[in-house]
Structure formats: structure tokens, C-alpha cells
């Protein structure tokens, strides 16, 4: 996983070719067929190893920025709704109800079809569905925590509402939120790969693993490497990030031992 992040950061230095460099005389090479292209080339003659490395960058950029945005929007909204309640809480809860009434994927596709494709749109569309999760967890956490004795004690010694919320409640609510964020990363990787797979994702010539899988569908009978390599990349990255989530949960929340 660290390896994937490393690939994403240093894609420019590591990849032997530019991700969009086209060699029309070297179309659809098998791995090791040509000494300069260890993993072959794709249907328009782009070096597959380079595209895989740049795919890591796309995947990381989308997933990390979506989770950052989701955290920045979901955390304050969830905290305020949970702490102060009232009309604001009512509105937020209804929004959460509505957004969980149908699959997030359908909604993401709708937003992308409205805004048009491309990397910024995908980040926006996935953030719109991701902040809900964070807001819901934050709200639930704050709701249970604000009834605790130390909260009453803090109020008793005259702490302001904001001080209670930010100094006493949020730090205690952080671990489930962090766990949700770390489990959110593989979800977003999956969503980005899936959308690109359907042809709704990032635009050409940017490399995306999902798009590479989608494009390979037509060639899979002969050029198996086109399908196998990006699917392996997606699977390994998602496994890595879910293990990170598992590890974080075990470290931060020892009470929750049942793995489901």
C-alpha cells in the first residue's frame, strides 16, 4: 500500500514512458515481446507498465481527495446536527434518509451525466455521496457522547458550548470517524474504477485502472494481459486499504472485536 502511494507520487520518475505516448508501430504487444515494454502495450500502442503506474496516481488522487472533502463537509455538519439538534438536525437527518434510500452508485452516475465526465467531476460526484457516511457517524457519536458525565461536568464548570464540542466531544468521537474514512478509501477506489470501467470516468488519455479493464474487454481472448494486470492492481490496492482499515479499527477501537 505504501508501495502504491509511492508509485502514485513518483509516477513521473518511475514510468519508462509518458502515459499518453503512442507508438503506432507497437500496438498490442504481449508482455516481454519487446525489450522496451516489459508489460506490453495497449490497443493504441501505449506502454502498459507506464499506464499502470499512472493509474495508481489517478486512483490515489481521486480516493484521497474525495475522503478529505467528505471529512471536511461531513464532520462539521454531523457534529453540529448531533450537538445542537433542532431544525438543523431535522433537515440533515432527512437529507441522510433520502440519500440512503437508493444506491449511491446510481446517484453518482446521474451527477456525472449532468456535470459531464472528467477527474474533477468524479471527485465532486463521489464527495456528494461520501460526506453522508461521515456526517451520519459523527452525528451518532456526538449524540451518545453528549449525554456522558464529563460533558455535564464541563458544562458545570462553565465551559462554552463550542469548547465542549471541539475540546471534549470531537476528540472522543474521532476514532470511529477515522475508521470510516479509512474504509471509505477502498470504496472510492472501487467507485472510480467502476465508473471508468463503464466509460463514465476520467477522460482519455489519463490512465485509470478501471478504464483499462473496460477497454480490455474486447481484446481479452488473445491479449489477456490487458485485463489481468489492471484487475490485479485494483484488487491488491483495495485489499491493502481494507487491511489498513481493519488494523486501524483493532488499534483504535478494541471493544469492537467481532469481524463482520
Amino acid at each position: 500500500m505504501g508501495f502504491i502511494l509511492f508509485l502514485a507520487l513518483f509516477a513521473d520518475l518511475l514510468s519508462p514512458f509518458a502515459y499518453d505516448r503512442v507508438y503506432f508501430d507497437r500496438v498490442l504487444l504481449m508482455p516481454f515481446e519487446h525489450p522496451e515494454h516489459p508489460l506490453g502495450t495497449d490497443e493504441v500502442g501505449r506502454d502498459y507498465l507506464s499506464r499502470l503506474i499512472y493509474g495508481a496516481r489517478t486512483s490515489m488522487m481521486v480516493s484521497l481527495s474525495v475522503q478529505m472533502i467528505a471529512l471536511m463537509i461531513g464532520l462539521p455538519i454531523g457534529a453540529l446536527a448531533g450537538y445542537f439538534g433542532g431544525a438543523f438536525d431535522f433537515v440533515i437527518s432527512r437529507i441522510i434518509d433520502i440519500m440512503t434510500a437508493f444506491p449511491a452508485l446510481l446517484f453518482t452516475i446521474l451527477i456525472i451525466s449532468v456535470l459531464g465526465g472528467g477527474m474533477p467531476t468524479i471527485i465532486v460526484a463521489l464527495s456528494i455521496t461520501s460526506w453522508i457516511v461521515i456526517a451520519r457517524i459523527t452525528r451518532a457519536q456526538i449524540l451518545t457522547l453528549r449525554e456522558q458525565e464529563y460533558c455535564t461536568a464541563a458544562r458545570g464548570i462553565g465551559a462554552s458550548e463550542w469548547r465542549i464540542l471541539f475540546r471534549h466531544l470531537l476528540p472522543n468521537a474521532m476514532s470511529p470517524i477515522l475508521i470510516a474514512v479509512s474504509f471509505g478509501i477502498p470504496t472510492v477506489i472501487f467507485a472510480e474504477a467502476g465508473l471508468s470501467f463503464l466509460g463514465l470516468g476520467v477522460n482519455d488519455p489519463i490512465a485509470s485502472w478501471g478504464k483499462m479493464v473496460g477497454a480490455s474487454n474486447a481484446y481479452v481472448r488473445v491479449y489477456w494481459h490487458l485485463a489481468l494486470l489492471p484487475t490485479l492492481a485494483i484488487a491488491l490496492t483495495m485489499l491493502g486499504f481494507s487491511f489498513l482499515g481493519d488494523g486501524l479499527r483493532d488499534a483504535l477501537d478494541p471493544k469492537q472485536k467481532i469481524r463482520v
Partner: protein
Amino acid sequence: MLGYICGRIFALMMILLAVSIIVFSLMHSVPGGPFDERKGRLPPAAKANILKKYGLDQPVWKQYINYMSHAVRFDFGIPYQRPHTTVAKLISKSWAITVQVGLTTIVVAFGFGILAGIYAAYHQNSWVDTLVTFVSSLGVTVPNFVVAMWLILIFAVSLNWLPMGGWGSSGQCLIDKYFCTDWILPVVAYAIAPMAIVARYTRASIVEVMGEDYVRTARAKGLSEIKVMRKHVLRNAQIPMVTALGTEIPNLITGSIFIESTFRINGLGKYFVTSTLNRDYPMIMATFLLVAFLWGILYLLTDIAYTMIDPRVRLGAKSLS
């Protein structure tokens, strides 16, 4: 109980209304429309006529009221991409396939998932248990289109045992047009993730129940192992299992866009993608309303199923949250 169900149905109606408003305004919030001249220029008069025919020349709020007044009578209009049919017909035709995929997958996933979970729980820490735990953690994380690609590479490309795609078009079927050889790969690829979740839930809840005192009592009074499992363990382990069931089923029968796209199945998911790309407003609206309705109904049914399995659960009772 009855009052609770009525309340839930009312809430579902409100959600459907909200969903319809959100989707409708999102669709109409950007310039351009389904009849933009991308494929060739139209004379202005002809374009105005088309827009008028579909009511697209009116203000958006009027279009919405128009649409909804037809929709409550189950008239969802005409899909722009196929003008010779109706949305209701196109959806029922494509959804029939999606439901076939989904139901077969549910049977496979829950059948094998529950069996594997029970076996793993009963033989804790055996190699079968380790295998089930390992496969299920893989199955939960790896996306289904990736699994689908691997299955195609192994069974269709290198072994050449099974067809690469289609649904009921291979000609080798068990009963008439059903249970064909080309059903196997999509169903297996689709079933792995829910199967993993079901197996994990089943294992975890059975392991927990097996540690209870009443199970030891049942054993101590000399009941046979089968009777202990059936009457005491499984009965109590059902409750968490229903949770998994309830959340997975609506997902499965509303269709996997990825599976349909990988195996070229003409189901609801595929039409949804083409509809959004072509801005086919009536199809998008109808799909969203259908999916939201199904989710709401199935979640309600799950909650009712709880009370039947566990008499301690009282729906609608005042709780603290």
C-alpha cells in the same frame, strides 16, 4: 404494529416525492437536452415540434407536475431512446432479466454462504474455517467486475469451458430458456461478495451463540448435537443473519451495473447507463423511483421479519435514540 407500518409507508411516499424532485431538478439543471443536435442539424420547426410533443417546451415545474400526475397512474411516458415502446414496458422487460440474475445470485450466495458459515463456526479454527475466513475477506474487498474478469480469463479464455457473455443465448440450457451455461459466470462473479458477507455474519453470530450458557445446558441435558444446533443455536443466530439478508437483497435485485456490462446482459443497469448518457429523462426518473421504492419496501419487510423471528423486538416502540 399496523400503525407503525402505515407510518413507514407514509415515510416511503415522502422519500419517493423528495427523490423525484431532486432527480428531476438535477436532470433539468444544466443547459442542453435529449434532442440537442449532436447527430445532425434539425430544422428549427421540426425541433420545436419534437420538444412540444414531449412537453419539453414548458417551464420545468410544469413539466414536473405533468410527469408526476401521470406517474401516480403508473404511466411513466415514452423513452426517448426507443420511441416505439413505453418506459413501463422497457423497464419490465429489462428488469425481468435483472431479477433473474439477482434471484439466482441470492439463492447461490445465501445457500453457500450460510452453509459455509455454519460449517466454519462449528469447526472453529480448522482449515475449513481458515479457508472460509480468507476467501470471504477477499470476496468482500475485490470488486465484482474484477472477479468477473478473472473468471472470464480462467473459464472462458484459457479453459474455454463456458461462454464469455450473454444471458440465455448460449443455447445450452437446463430448462427451456432458464439456467443456461452462460448464467454460470455472471452469477458466480456476482454472488461472491454477498456470499462472503453472509458467511462472515453467519459464522460470527453462530460462534457467539455457541458460547452462551443455554447451549451448554442443552448439551448437558443430553440433547443430540443436531438438535442443539437446530433448536438452540441456529434459532438464535438467525437474527443477525437477517440483518445481512435484508441489506443485501435490495442491492442484488436492483441489479449490478458492472456485471451486466461485463457479460453484456441487457438488464436494467445497462439501460440506466445508456439513459443517463442520452439524457433520457423518463427512463432515469422511472428507474430512480423504482429503485427507491424497492429499497424502502424491502427494508420494511426486513424489519417485519425481525419481529417474526425474535418476539422480543417490538416495532415502533419508543426507543432512546
